[in-house]
């Protein structure tokens, strides 16, 4: 009997999220400080939803529509965000560590103070995205469209900016490698002040 109950508890722990949180989210279009870890939210339309300070660790949000949603302070560590739409959404203070986000749409998204570490944002569409004060480490932006985006107070020197569109992208108080600097200049990026090419 003990083994039976232990197994149930183990399965619940593996699931992570609570169904009541998903039901609440879909019914009220908001759920603050909720637990969606390990949940499969793939392909859902969550546009304009308010889901601040929530836990999306290991969740599947591929192809999910989060247009203009408010996700401030949420944790997406290890989540699958491939092809998801975050157009004009609020991603301030989010944790995007180790996310798989190929072809994610971040057009006009606000990523101020977000954490991007070992994240794959290759082939993303991130025009006009705001990365001010974001902590960016070993992040792959290869082939991404970062035109008109803002990179203020960042260190991008160990991230991949190869083949990116950097047209009118603004850099200020940012550390780049020599290679990244010459690519940015070729792309007609705008160096405002204190950009270090090392």
């Amino acid at each position, binding site marked *: 009997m003990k083994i039976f109950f232990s197994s149930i508890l183990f399965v619940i722990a593996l699931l992570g999220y609570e169904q009541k949180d998903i039901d609440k989210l879909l019914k009220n279009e908001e759920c603050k400080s909720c637990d969606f870890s390990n949940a499969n939210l793939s392909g859902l339309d969550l546009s304009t939803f308010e889901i601040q300070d929530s836990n999306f660790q290991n969740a599947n949000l591929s192809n999910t529509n989060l247009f203009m949603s408010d996700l401030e302070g949420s944790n997406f560590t290890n989540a699958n965000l491939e092809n998801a739409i975050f157009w004009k959404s609020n991603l301030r203070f989010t944790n995007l560590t180790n996310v798989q986000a190929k072809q994610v749409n971040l057009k006009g998204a606000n990523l101020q103070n977000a954490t991007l570490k070992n994240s794959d944002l290759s082939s993303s569409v991130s025009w006009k995205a705001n990365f001010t004060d974001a902590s960016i480490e070993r992040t792959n932006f290869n082939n991404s469209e970062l035109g*008109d985006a803002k990179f203020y107070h960042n260190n991008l020197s160990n991230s991949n900016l190869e083949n990116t569109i950097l047209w*009118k992208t603004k850099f200020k108080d940012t550390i780049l490698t020599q290679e990244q600097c010459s690519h940015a200049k070729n792309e007609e990026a705008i160096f405002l002040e204190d950009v270090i090419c090392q």
Partner: protein
Amino acid sequence: MIKTILLFLFSLNLLNAMQITDDIIFQNIYKQQQNSNKIVLMLYSAKTCPQCAYMKQKVFKNNEVKNFMNKHFILLEKDINKDDLPEGFDYFGIPTMFFVDKEGKQIAKIIGSSRSEAFLKQLKNIMEEK
């Protein structure tokens, strides 16, 4: 009765639907002998769209792209805020580039922006598959 009204509205809509071949600029392009083998690149964009501006101000002005476009394509610009799309053409986002032959048949479509090298490759593929 309702069916009759719907049928009437439907046929009215069909009558109003403009074909690309009805477009005066499109017609004028193919009136010129030197354009007879070229493909129309119809760019559907807007003044406020940064991706459209990038394509027009950076990519189309790249020397290799410009030369290839001059040789094989004629640019026809349409504004999302002013121009209706012709019958049979649809778009999801801007910029959308429709490639149209002189019979008015859409032979390819590119959605979104890309860097000059990638865009040139796409143009070459369109010419190969033509």
